[in-house]
Structure formats: C-alpha cells, structure tokens
C-alpha cells in the first residue's frame, strides 16, 4: 500500500439520481471499508448516510458495492480491495437507494416471506424436543445453507434479479431450501408451490454470482438446484396444483 491517504469515491444521492463525491481518508493499518466510510461521516461530512450495526460480520447490515463488487464492508480490508490506493463505494445493486449508501431492503425481505421462509412446525411446547441426527442427509443439506446473515450481497450479485423484478433471489430460495430440509417443518407443499415457476427456482441460470460473492461461502445455486429437483418431484405427484 503506497501513500498514507486513500482516495475514496462515494456515491451520494437519493433514489436514482446521484453522483460520486471524492474524499481523502487517512490510511490506517487493518483498516476496513466500513472504517473508511465511518471516518468520512464522523470527520468530513456528517450528512453521509450508510447502514451498519455489529461491525464484526454477524448482522449483515453493512453490505455495499466496493470497487464494483458487492461486499460486507466491515470484514473487507482496504488492503485487499484498494491495491492502487483508490476505493469506490456505492450502494448495493438491485435494491432501491434510500440515500447515499443506504438501500431499502423491503423487497429483499418481502421475498423471503413470499418464498415461505417462515418455519412452521406442528409441535407445541408440551412436546419433547425433536431428535434430528447431525449425520442425516436432510440435516446436512439444511446445515449447508443455514448460516445466511441476510446481507443482500447475493441478491446484488444476481443478474436474474436485475432483469426479472419478480425473481425471489438467491437468499430467499436458499432459506426455503433449508426449511424444505427441516424435518420438523410441515409447510413443504405450499413452500414448493411458492418457489416454483419463473419467479422462483426455475428462473435461476446457475451463473453462480451468488456463490462467488457470498460472504459466508454458502452455495445458493446448489440450494436452488435442490428446489428444482424437489419441485419437479412434487409436480410429478401432482402436488403443485
């Protein structure tokens, strides 16, 4: 890393209208992109809007487009992405911009609901705990996708989301797949109906932008492929009517 300052272009604007504004930010050791954005807001321009909460990669609220790629900014070191001393920070793609770097996540999470992403069990508090073997195939498939933090990076990486506004997107479909594999859940039929079709799993082109960028190294494309198989099986049985 050369020099002790960083030239940072930050997207400023409301909705679709805006422009990049340049800032000079002191370079520090182990500096993250979120540190840079926070420095600008605290020391240069307090009107800069952005979103964060935990700062340690748990909450999934600080995702932004960094040098053209969606990333979780709290866990992205400047040294990793700004080799030439330049940084460009923009809001996530495929989501409505509220202001500057903050996007409206409503569509993103509404699609989780549309994909029947809510656990629905049949047992009550009086029943004993369900016994689920960690080695069972269903538990393994659920575990493979369960660590999603809902940051929206996959959603911003997906070209199908960009051209098909109805498409549920990788995160919502991945969530649905973990529930399809949850042996305690009883809503599979309606869930498979919700995720089939050209707004659901069948719209996926398997381009794997989501896999490439997922901050938790999940594989939503694989989950979506699982949904394609499960819906095909349900269609053969006539269960999607």
């Amino acid at each position, binding site marked *: 890393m050369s020099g002790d300052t960083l030239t940072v272009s930050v997207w400023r604007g409301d909705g679709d209208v805006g422009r990049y504004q340049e800032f000079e930010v002191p370079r520090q050791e182990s500096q993250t992109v979120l540190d840079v954005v926070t420095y600008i807001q605290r020391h240069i321009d307090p009107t800069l809007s952005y979103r964060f909460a935990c700062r340690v990669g748990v909450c999934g609220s600080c995702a932004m487009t960094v040098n053209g790629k969606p990333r979780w900014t709290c866990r992205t070191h400047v040294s990793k992405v700004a080799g030439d001393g330049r940084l460009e920070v923009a809001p996530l793609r495929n989501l409505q911009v509220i202001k500057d770097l903050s996007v409206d996540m409503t569509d993103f999470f509404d699609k989780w609901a549309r994909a029947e992403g809510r656990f629905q069990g049949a047992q009550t508090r009086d029943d004993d705990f369900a016994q689920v073997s960690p080695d069972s195939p269903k538990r393994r498939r659920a575990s493979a996708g369960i660590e999603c933090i809902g940051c929206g990076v996959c959603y911003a990486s997906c070209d199908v989301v960009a051209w098909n506004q*109805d498409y549920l997107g990788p995160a919502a479909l991945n969530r649905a797949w973990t529930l399809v594999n949850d042996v305690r859940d009883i809503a599979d039929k309606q869930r498979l109906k919700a995720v*089939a079709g*050209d707004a659901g799993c*069948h*719209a996926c082109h398997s381009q794997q932008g989501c896999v490439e960028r997922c901050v938790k190294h999940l594989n939503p494309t694989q989950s979506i492929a699982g949904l394609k198989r499960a819906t*095909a099986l349900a*269609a*053969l049985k006539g269960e*999607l*009517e």
Partner: protein
Amino acid sequence: MSAPNIQTEARLWLAQRVSAMVLAVCIAVHLGTIVYAVRGGLSAAEIIGRVAGSEAWFAFYSVFVIAVTVHAPIGLRAILNEMTKLPKTRVDLLCFLAAVLLAYLGLKVAWRFYMLGGA
C-alpha cells in the same frame, strides 16, 4: 406476479431435463457415427447404405427427433419469455408451432431415409 400454472412449469422443466439426458446420448452416438463415417470420405451412397431400411437407425433417429422436439421449444419459450415482452400465450403458441415443425421435418427425414431401403 401472475402464476399461470406452477405445476405445468415444473413439469416442463423436468421434461427439458429428461430430454437433455436423452439428447446427450443421441448426440454422442450421432457424432461418433460421423467420425466413423468420414474415415474414407463421405458419400450419399454410403449414408443411404447404412441407414436405409434399417429399423435400428430409424428408431434411433426417431428418438433423437422427439427429444429435440421436447427440448428445444421449452428452451426457446424460456428465452422468449425472458428476453422479449411478447404475451405469454403468444410465446406458448409460437413454441408449440416450433415443436410441430421440428417433429414434422425431423421425422419426415428419418422416415424417407428408412423408406429408401425399398420397403
């Protein structure tokens, strides 16, 4: 979003995947035959000599044509729905016509070659 018929969509997807598996075998046999057939130069007489009157080749190419008839229009339908603003019913009609055309032309050729065997 309007969901015309989720079940039909899922079945079409499955039909396309199954036909793709059939096509993978058919294309391998087809290409293998081409490589084998052109060893000593290609002639119409040689092709006719191989396939004319052969029930096996007629059956093979009939399966090939049917797999294409199932596979291609479903893909075409997805592309048209995604890349154009044509109404979905229009797209369905166009793709059905494409299927009919593919089946007619393909089966006609397979049948004519078979009949050259002098049945």
